[in-house]
Protein backbone atom coordinates (compact mmCIF):
# COMPACT_ATOMS: atom_id res chain seq x y z
CA UNK A 1 0.00 0.00 0.00
CA UNK A 2 2.95 2.27 0.72
CA UNK A 3 4.31 1.56 -2.76
CA UNK A 4 0.91 2.50 -4.11
CA UNK A 5 1.20 6.00 -2.65
CA UNK A 6 -0.36 5.77 0.79
CA UNK A 7 1.50 6.54 4.02
CA UNK A 8 1.00 3.65 6.43
CA UNK A 9 1.53 2.79 10.10
CA UNK A 10 1.33 -0.79 11.36
CA UNK A 11 0.33 -1.51 14.96
CA UNK A 12 1.60 -4.84 16.19
CA UNK A 13 1.86 -7.12 19.22
CA UNK A 14 4.43 -9.29 17.46
CA UNK A 15 7.62 -7.27 17.27
CA UNK A 16 9.79 -9.88 15.58
CA UNK A 17 7.28 -10.78 12.89
CA UNK A 18 6.74 -7.11 12.06
CA UNK A 19 10.46 -6.30 12.09
CA UNK A 20 11.14 -9.27 9.81
CA UNK A 21 8.37 -8.19 7.44
CA UNK A 22 9.81 -4.71 7.13
CA UNK A 23 6.93 -2.28 7.34
CA UNK A 24 7.41 1.42 6.65
CA UNK A 25 6.34 2.62 10.13
CA UNK A 26 5.60 0.38 13.11
CA UNK A 27 4.19 0.79 16.58
CA UNK A 28 4.99 -2.15 18.85
CA UNK A 29 2.67 -2.69 21.80
CA UNK A 30 3.93 -5.47 24.04
CA UNK A 31 0.51 -6.98 24.75
CA UNK A 32 -0.81 -10.48 24.05
CA UNK A 33 -1.86 -11.19 20.48
CA UNK A 34 -5.19 -9.71 19.63
CA UNK A 35 -4.58 -6.24 21.06
CA UNK A 36 -2.58 -4.26 18.49
CA UNK A 37 -4.56 -1.09 19.13
CA UNK A 38 -4.54 -1.09 22.91
CA UNK A 39 -5.88 -2.65 26.08
CA UNK A 40 -9.48 -3.82 25.88
CA UNK A 41 -12.00 -1.55 27.61
CA UNK A 42 -9.35 1.12 28.24
CA UNK A 43 -10.26 4.13 26.12
CA UNK A 44 -7.39 6.35 27.24
CA UNK A 45 -4.86 3.61 26.56
CA UNK A 46 -6.29 3.04 23.06
CA UNK A 47 -6.13 6.76 22.35
CA UNK A 48 -2.47 6.83 23.46
CA UNK A 49 -1.62 3.98 21.09
CA UNK A 50 -3.34 5.65 18.16
CA UNK A 51 -1.75 9.01 18.96
CA UNK A 52 1.68 7.34 18.97
CA UNK A 53 0.96 5.98 15.50
CA UNK A 54 -0.20 9.34 14.18
CA UNK A 55 2.88 11.02 15.66
CA UNK A 56 5.13 8.49 13.94
CA UNK A 57 3.34 9.26 10.70
CA UNK A 58 4.20 12.93 11.09
CA UNK A 59 7.74 12.48 12.44
CA UNK A 60 9.20 9.57 10.47
CA UNK A 61 11.64 10.64 7.79
CA UNK A 62 12.65 7.19 6.56
CA UNK A 63 11.30 3.67 6.29
CA UNK A 64 11.59 0.96 8.89
CA UNK A 65 11.22 2.88 12.16
CA UNK A 66 9.76 0.84 15.02
CA UNK A 67 8.48 2.67 18.08
CA UNK A 68 8.38 0.48 21.20
CA UNK A 69 5.57 1.71 23.43
CA UNK A 70 6.29 1.54 27.18
CA UNK A 71 2.96 0.02 28.16
CA UNK A 72 3.06 -3.17 30.21
CA UNK A 73 0.28 -5.74 30.04
CA UNK A 74 0.60 -7.10 33.57
CA UNK A 75 2.99 -7.19 36.51
CA UNK A 76 3.98 -10.73 35.71
CA UNK A 77 5.52 -11.74 32.41
CA UNK A 78 4.28 -15.31 32.79
CA UNK A 79 1.86 -14.81 29.90
CA UNK A 80 4.85 -14.52 27.59
CA UNK A 81 6.31 -17.82 28.76
CA UNK A 82 3.03 -19.69 28.63
CA UNK A 83 1.78 -18.54 25.24
CA UNK A 84 1.59 -21.33 22.67
CA UNK A 85 2.84 -24.16 24.86
CA UNK A 86 1.43 -27.54 25.83
CA UNK A 87 0.04 -25.87 28.91
CA UNK A 88 -1.73 -23.22 26.84
CA UNK A 89 -2.30 -24.61 23.35
CA UNK A 90 -2.93 -21.89 20.82
CA UNK A 91 -6.26 -23.16 19.58
CA UNK A 92 -9.05 -24.87 21.46
CA UNK A 93 -10.01 -28.34 20.24
CA UNK A 94 -12.86 -26.88 18.19
CA UNK A 95 -10.55 -24.18 16.86
CA UNK A 96 -7.99 -26.79 15.82
CA UNK A 97 -10.71 -28.80 14.08
CA UNK A 98 -11.76 -25.69 12.16
CA UNK A 99 -8.15 -24.97 11.21
CA UNK A 100 -7.69 -28.52 9.89
CA UNK A 101 -10.89 -28.17 7.87
CA UNK A 102 -9.63 -24.95 6.28
CA UNK A 103 -6.25 -26.49 5.45
CA UNK A 104 -8.00 -29.48 3.90
CA UNK A 105 -10.16 -27.22 1.72
CA UNK A 106 -7.12 -25.23 0.63
CA UNK A 107 -5.23 -28.41 -0.29
CA UNK A 108 -8.23 -29.71 -2.25
CA UNK A 109 -8.57 -26.46 -4.13
CA UNK A 110 -4.86 -26.42 -4.92
CA UNK A 111 -5.09 -30.01 -6.20
CA UNK A 112 -8.04 -29.15 -8.42
CA UNK A 113 -6.21 -26.18 -9.88
CA UNK A 114 -3.06 -28.13 -10.64
CA UNK A 115 -5.18 -30.35 -12.87
CA UNK A 116 -6.07 -27.43 -15.08
CA UNK A 117 -3.55 -26.46 -17.77
CA UNK A 118 -4.71 -22.87 -17.74
CA UNK A 119 -4.97 -20.59 -14.70
CA UNK A 120 -8.48 -20.17 -13.36
CA UNK A 121 -9.62 -16.59 -13.72
CA UNK A 122 -11.43 -15.50 -10.54
Amino acid at each position, binding site marked *: *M*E*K*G*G*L*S*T*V*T*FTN*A*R*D*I*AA*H*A*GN*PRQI*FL*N*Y*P*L*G*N*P*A*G*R*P*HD*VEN*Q*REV*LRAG*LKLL*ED*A*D*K*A*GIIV*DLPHVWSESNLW*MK*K*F*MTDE*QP*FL*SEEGEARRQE*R*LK*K*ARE*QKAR*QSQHPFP*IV*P
Partner: protein
Amino acid sequence: MAYIHYIDRTHEYYRSQGYEKTYNYAHNEDIPFTPLARPLSECRVTLVTTASFLLLDEEGRPLEALKMLGTNEMEVFTAPSDWPADRIVSTSEDHDRYQTDMKDVNAFFPITRLQEILKEGVFGSLSKNFYRTLPNYSHRKTTEVDGPEILRQCLEDKVDVALLTPV
Protein backbone atom coordinates in the same frame (compact mmCIF):
# COMPACT_ATOMS: atom_id res chain seq x y z
CA MET B 1 12.41 -5.17 26.98
CA ALA B 2 11.38 -8.82 27.07
CA TYR B 3 8.97 -9.82 24.37
CA ILE B 4 7.80 -13.03 22.73
CA HIS B 5 9.80 -14.15 19.70
CA TYR B 6 6.86 -15.39 17.70
CA ILE B 7 8.80 -16.68 14.73
CA ASP B 8 10.76 -19.12 16.90
CA ARG B 9 7.81 -19.85 19.18
CA THR B 10 5.47 -20.79 16.33
CA HIS B 11 8.15 -22.89 14.65
CA GLU B 12 8.83 -24.80 17.90
CA TYR B 13 5.16 -25.21 18.67
CA TYR B 14 4.13 -26.61 15.30
CA ARG B 15 7.21 -28.83 15.18
CA SER B 16 6.21 -30.27 18.54
CA GLN B 17 2.78 -30.96 17.07
CA GLY B 18 4.35 -32.98 14.29
CA TYR B 19 4.41 -30.43 11.47
CA GLU B 20 7.79 -30.54 9.76
CA LYS B 21 7.36 -27.69 7.34
CA THR B 22 7.95 -24.29 8.92
CA TYR B 23 6.06 -21.21 7.85
CA ASN B 24 8.05 -18.75 5.83
CA TYR B 25 7.28 -15.33 7.36
CA ALA B 26 7.06 -12.42 4.93
CA HIS B 27 10.20 -10.38 4.49
CA ASN B 28 10.80 -7.25 2.42
CA GLU B 29 14.37 -6.26 1.65
CA ASP B 30 13.42 -2.86 0.30
CA ILE B 31 10.93 -1.08 2.50
CA PRO B 32 8.95 1.52 0.58
CA PHE B 33 8.30 4.93 2.09
CA THR B 34 5.71 7.49 1.08
CA PRO B 35 6.08 10.70 3.10
CA LEU B 36 2.85 12.37 4.17
CA ALA B 37 1.62 14.29 1.17
CA ARG B 38 -0.17 16.93 3.22
CA PRO B 39 -0.65 17.89 6.87
CA LEU B 40 -2.35 15.16 8.88
CA SER B 41 -5.24 17.52 9.55
CA GLU B 42 -6.02 17.41 5.83
CA CYS B 43 -5.53 13.67 5.35
CA ARG B 44 -8.13 11.02 4.71
CA VAL B 45 -7.47 8.02 6.95
CA THR B 46 -8.45 4.39 6.61
CA LEU B 47 -8.11 1.33 8.83
CA VAL B 48 -7.11 -2.13 7.60
CA THR B 49 -7.11 -5.24 9.73
CA THR B 50 -6.73 -8.99 9.46
CA ALA B 51 -9.03 -9.64 12.40
CA SER B 52 -12.09 -11.64 11.45
CA PHE B 53 -15.41 -10.21 12.46
CA LEU B 54 -19.04 -9.99 11.46
CA LEU B 55 -21.16 -6.88 11.09
CA LEU B 56 -24.56 -7.15 12.74
CA ASP B 57 -27.83 -5.54 11.73
CA GLU B 58 -30.02 -3.70 14.21
CA GLU B 59 -31.56 -6.99 15.32
CA GLY B 60 -28.16 -8.46 16.09
CA ARG B 61 -28.09 -10.74 13.05
CA PRO B 62 -24.94 -11.03 10.94
CA LEU B 63 -25.17 -9.21 7.63
CA GLU B 64 -23.38 -12.03 5.87
CA ALA B 65 -22.17 -15.55 6.56
CA LEU B 66 -18.67 -16.04 7.90
CA LYS B 67 -16.28 -16.93 5.10
CA MET B 68 -13.46 -19.37 5.57
CA LEU B 69 -9.96 -18.55 4.50
CA GLY B 70 -7.74 -20.57 2.27
CA THR B 71 -9.35 -20.06 -1.09
CA ASN B 72 -8.13 -18.15 -4.09
CA GLU B 73 -11.16 -15.89 -4.15
CA MET B 74 -10.51 -12.34 -3.22
CA GLU B 75 -10.93 -11.99 0.53
CA VAL B 76 -11.42 -8.28 1.14
CA PHE B 77 -14.36 -7.18 3.26
CA THR B 78 -15.50 -3.68 4.07
CA ALA B 79 -17.07 -2.05 7.09
CA PRO B 80 -18.50 1.47 6.74
CA SER B 81 -16.25 3.80 8.75
CA ASP B 82 -19.24 5.12 10.70
CA TRP B 83 -20.41 1.66 11.82
CA PRO B 84 -21.07 1.30 15.57
CA ALA B 85 -18.63 -0.95 17.43
CA ASP B 86 -21.43 -2.63 19.35
CA ARG B 87 -22.62 -4.11 16.06
CA ILE B 88 -19.30 -5.76 15.31
CA VAL B 89 -18.53 -9.18 16.74
CA SER B 90 -15.15 -10.90 16.51
CA THR B 91 -14.81 -14.38 15.07
CA SER B 92 -11.02 -14.30 15.31
CA GLU B 93 -9.01 -17.17 16.68
CA ASP B 94 -5.56 -15.62 16.20
CA HIS B 95 -5.19 -14.23 19.68
CA ASP B 96 -3.90 -15.29 23.08
CA ARG B 97 -7.19 -16.64 24.40
CA TYR B 98 -5.80 -17.14 27.91
CA GLN B 99 -5.06 -13.46 28.31
CA THR B 100 -7.66 -11.67 26.27
CA ASP B 101 -11.00 -12.08 24.61
CA MET B 102 -11.92 -10.08 21.54
CA LYS B 103 -15.01 -8.51 23.06
CA ASP B 104 -13.72 -4.93 22.86
CA VAL B 105 -13.46 -4.44 19.13
CA ASN B 106 -11.51 -1.21 19.58
CA ALA B 107 -8.52 -3.13 20.96
CA PHE B 108 -7.85 -4.50 17.47
CA PHE B 109 -10.13 -2.51 15.16
CA PRO B 110 -10.23 0.98 16.70
CA ILE B 111 -13.25 2.21 14.75
CA THR B 112 -14.86 4.18 17.58
CA ARG B 113 -11.54 5.73 18.62
CA LEU B 114 -10.98 6.94 15.06
CA GLN B 115 -14.51 8.35 14.84
CA GLU B 116 -13.79 10.27 18.05
CA ILE B 117 -10.38 11.49 16.94
CA LEU B 118 -11.93 12.68 13.66
CA LYS B 119 -14.36 14.88 15.61
CA GLU B 120 -11.34 16.41 17.36
CA GLY B 121 -10.00 17.57 14.00
CA VAL B 122 -6.75 15.60 14.14
CA PHE B 123 -7.19 14.43 10.56
CA GLY B 124 -9.31 15.66 7.68
CA SER B 125 -11.66 12.75 7.11
CA LEU B 126 -12.14 9.02 7.35
CA SER B 127 -12.41 6.85 4.28
CA LYS B 128 -15.88 5.71 3.33
CA ASN B 129 -15.03 2.14 4.31
CA PHE B 130 -12.57 0.38 6.55
CA TYR B 131 -11.13 -2.90 5.40
CA ARG B 132 -10.48 -6.35 6.62
CA THR B 133 -8.75 -9.13 4.83
CA LEU B 134 -8.35 -12.67 6.10
CA PRO B 135 -4.95 -13.57 7.57
CA ASN B 136 -4.19 -15.69 4.56
CA TYR B 137 -0.87 -17.44 4.86
CA SER B 138 -0.17 -17.17 1.17
CA HIS B 139 2.18 -14.27 0.45
CA ARG B 140 1.17 -14.39 -3.17
CA LYS B 141 -2.49 -14.06 -2.34
CA THR B 142 -1.89 -11.03 -0.16
CA THR B 143 0.50 -9.24 -2.50
CA GLU B 144 -1.24 -10.09 -5.76
CA VAL B 145 -4.94 -10.28 -4.93
CA ASP B 146 -6.13 -8.85 -1.63
CA GLY B 147 -3.60 -6.06 -1.08
CA PRO B 148 -4.02 -4.54 -4.57
CA GLU B 149 -7.80 -4.59 -4.19
CA ILE B 150 -7.64 -2.67 -0.91
CA LEU B 151 -5.20 -0.24 -2.52
CA ARG B 152 -7.48 0.20 -5.53
CA GLN B 153 -10.46 1.07 -3.34
CA CYS B 154 -8.34 3.41 -1.22
CA LEU B 155 -7.02 5.29 -4.26
CA GLU B 156 -10.55 5.58 -5.61
CA ASP B 157 -11.63 7.03 -2.29
CA LYS B 158 -8.61 9.38 -2.25
CA VAL B 159 -7.21 7.93 0.96
CA ASP B 160 -3.87 9.35 2.15
CA VAL B 161 -3.13 7.30 5.25
CA ALA B 162 -3.71 3.68 6.18
CA LEU B 163 -3.50 2.40 9.76
CA LEU B 164 -2.93 -1.33 9.85
CA THR B 165 -3.84 -3.63 12.72
CA PRO B 166 -2.76 -7.15 11.88
CA VAL B 167 -4.05 -9.84 14.24
